[in-house]
């Protein structure tokens, strides 16, 4: 079991387990996961559908509570925090990118990106959001609504939103799965460019080997256990 965590390892998990009680007995989704992710590192977690990848991502991000074991985010054990405490820990320091983009349909691209900046009390959220969107190649699309954007453009807005507050850790759940290969490639390019530029930890869940190869490390989730690349 991993015993230590430090500022060099913003995300660590030790003995992490997740199970649910069903009428047919206990269903173990994750079994004794140990993980240590270094600053600036990009880690891919691969696995078949239903292997528990998204569950692990949720636990690492503090969106869900583990049945056993511990997650430390920025050296803070999540088990000691309630839901609001975990939210406060994430604010401005953790970003998310989702398979289904999760853009708010009633907001323009600019407004979507401004949202996390406003939550963290940024001085000029509109300016910062516009700059990040420009970096994502969407300077001409600031005032478009999600429904007026292509899938690739929507995911680039989602990336801009995730990176705008300058997060230390970014959790990405199948960020290119809803995109065609060409668009997916362009989005992946942007994701890693921004990640390296900001020195952000990237924990990427995917079943796309090509995408995973861009990461510093690849881990496989099989039958609830996390295995390093053979």
């Amino acid at each position, binding site marked *: 079991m991993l015993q230590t965590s430090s500022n060099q390892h913003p995300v660590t998990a030790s003995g992490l387990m997740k199970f649910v009680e069903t009428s047919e007995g206990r269903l173990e989704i994750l079994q004794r996961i140990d993980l240590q992710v270094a600053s600036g590192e990009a880690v891919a977690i691969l696995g078949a559908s239903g292997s528990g990848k998204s569950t692990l991502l*949720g636990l690492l991000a503090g969106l869900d509570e583990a049945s056993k074991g511990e997650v430390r985010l920025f050296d803070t054990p999540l088990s000691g925090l309630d839901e609001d405490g975990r939210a406060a820990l*994430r604010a401005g320091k953790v970003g998310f990118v989702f398979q289904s983009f999760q853009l708010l349909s009633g907001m323009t691209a600019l407004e979507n990106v401004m949202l996390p900046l406003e939550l963290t009390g940024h001085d000029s959220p509109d300016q910062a959001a516009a700059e990040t969107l420009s970096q994502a190649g969407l300077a001409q699309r600031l005032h478009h609504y999600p429904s007026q954007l292509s899938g690739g453009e929507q995911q680039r807005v989602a990336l801009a939103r995730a990176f705008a507050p300058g997060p230390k850790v970014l959790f990405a759940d199948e960020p290119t799965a809803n995109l065609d290969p060409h668009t997916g490639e362009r989005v992946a390019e942007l994701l890693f460019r921004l990640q390296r530029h900001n020195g952000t930890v990237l924990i990427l869940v995917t079943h796309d080997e090509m995408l995973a190869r861009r990461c510093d490390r690849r881990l496989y989730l099989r039958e609830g256990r996390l295995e390093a690349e053979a």
Partner: protein
Amino acid sequence: MNPFSLALRLLRRDWRAGELRLLATALVIAVASVTSVGFFTDRVERAMERQATEVLAADLRLESNQPITESLIEAADQRLLRRAQTLSFPSVMLNNGATQLVQVKAVSDTYPLRGRMRVRDSVSGEDHATESLPQPGEAWLEERLLPLLDLHIGDTIKLGQSPFRIARIISYEPDRSANLFQLAPRVMIRLDEVDKTGLLGPASRVRHYLLLAGSPSQMSDYRQWIETQSRPGIQVEDIRAARPELRIALERGGRFLRLAASTAILLCVVAVALSSRRFVERQSDTSALLRCLGASSRDVGRIFLLRLLSLGVIASLAGSLLGLAAQAVLVELIGHWFTSRIPAPSAWPLLSGLATGILVLIGFSLPSVLRLSEVPPLRVFRRHLGTPPVSYRLFLATALISLGALLMWQIGDDRLAFQLIGGLLAGMAILLLVSRLLVHLLTPLRNRTAGSWRYGLASLSRNPTTTSIQMTGFGLGITVLLVLAMVRVDLLSNWRNALPKESPNQFLINIQPGEVESVRNLLAEGGIETGGPYPMIRGRLISIDDRRISENDYRSPRAQRLATRDFNLSLATEIQSDNKILAGRWWSESEWHEPWFSVEQGLAETLGIPLGSQLAFEVAGQRISGRVENFRSVQWDSFNVNFFVIGTPGLMADLPATYITSFYLPPEKRELLHRLIQAHPSVTALDVTALMQQVRAIMDRGTLAVESVFLFTVAAGLIVLYAGIQASHELRVQETAILRTLGLSRRRLVVSVLLEFTLLGGLAGLISAALASAISYSLATSVFELPWSIDPAMWGIALFGGAAGVGLAGTLASWRLFNTPPMTVLKKA
């Protein structure tokens, strides 16, 4: 983070995205209905009240047997009240050797302050309103005086030492109806001509009146002031002490209006509750995302609370302005029905609109919206994790408190408010239970059907909770609309039927016992039907349970007056058809000899007479006493002869009595009345046609006002319908896309949606018909005290109207989905 600015930005963005339109529209209509009804009823009630003040020809009347003291007049002048003075005294008029007791009324230039006199220039002429008064040297007379003294228009009569020319016939004087049963016919002259008649001396039986009118605040100020003054011998009367026929007509009109306003509130809260539910469902993603991005549940709660309150204030303001505009149109439509200008709107309904909007939101939206702060952030990965359902008890508690407060405030009648809330709760419970049961019964049918029927039935049973909520929403909407329709059609027509066209318009009083047979025969010869004559005994109540009563025992002017004046008693063997026993029982033939009284309920309440108590009356120097055997309600607005107190024959048969009767005299038979008066000069004939017209006018205006208010309730009903349809919209979007992807034709899709909503509407309509019948029965019998009968047509309208209305509206509201490419939907998901 500044939650307020973020909340405002989100609100603005949500509005642009259409997220809040349904909730805001429901709220705007709620507030617009309430404020338009509020503005409108406020103005109409004030106008109706002003019109009713005609009964006193003033807002307030001071009466004394001494000249009104200067201090009372000065206080009125200081408050800038308008005033008029009148005098009334009996006198004897002579003509060609015949004499007749008359009641002279002398009026100042400003008389009347409220209402207008109606006069005829000749016996056969049409009566018309007039602003003028008798000119110097002129007298105006009541028509019945002409045959008694063989007088004609243009003749000169002498009052004391002064001659007066008969210029006009008085057919209506506003304040005459407050003292209808005055025996002597009226002669009206100018106040400044009284002295020269020389009729008034120190011992004259003169009544002095000071009439006052002004704005409500001015009047209230004067009323408060006069309450603190010592005023021996001065009686203060306002509209509440006026004739019971008019008071009841006004009160009923007010109740109808307030009921209409309350139904609009009920419908709107249903719409707000339904649209809040949808809003919460659609905002779950935003909440999860905000929490994912680091907002605490408190932040999220504050953001949604501020959004809700901002929306409440904005929508309430918009609703209030819409209400203001709408009532202006209404007032424009019916303004000409009123004899005087409708008063300007006050600010009160605007404030009440704002408060209504906020109360509705807090009661029906806040508990669900605050649950948004509890959305698990994991929803970003797991779509099935939604907003935790609001605690049933919490929702019910806030909803009941806010609705209770709203209704009691708006209706101002606790009993009616509780009935409505009880009805709503019972209705909701019944609708929820029955709809659940129906969904359960319909579920197996889907396996026995095919095609569109199967999809339609499957849609109903796929989510029993949503279906039950939808059916409850539709059901409540239809129920309220049905109740209102019945109120409008049935209760209003019953109300008007309480005063049928051939209601008695003539009273004959002071018929001596020896004249009863002759009067009856004369009327029968003329083809006039009459229920009487009834014996009338003048008596004064002197004690209740051996406790002597005096004016000082009571605070209300009416009670004080009743405690000091004679009033009319009668005796009867049978109860009159327009009377109803409310407590105790009527006497049987074997009990006629018992010393018992039957007392009108209102009188018993005013004077504090308990059932079973011993009453003593002084009748012509004789003391009689008996037990109160029952309380009766009396339909005063029927214009039949009625009495506050009736005794058994054994108790009252030997007392000196005159007789009274009432009957309907068609205009073409007026000559019969002249013959009757000439044959029986001591009999007094009273023509109440003008008073009845006044009552009818109040009823007509009340009816029209309720019908106008009904339009707002219909609008509120439509928004409930729309909110109900939208309740299943999210599910339908997804399912429609999947079904179309799987190859279901557009036509079959349309038919299945049509079937789904038609079934929903039809079933909701059926339950609503049963509920509406029960509610209208309760309202008719216990609130409006009117007869009620079951209406089979209403059941048909509810069933087919519900099915067709909801079916068509639901299908049309879903039309856009039928034309949306499935890919667009599936890509979004």
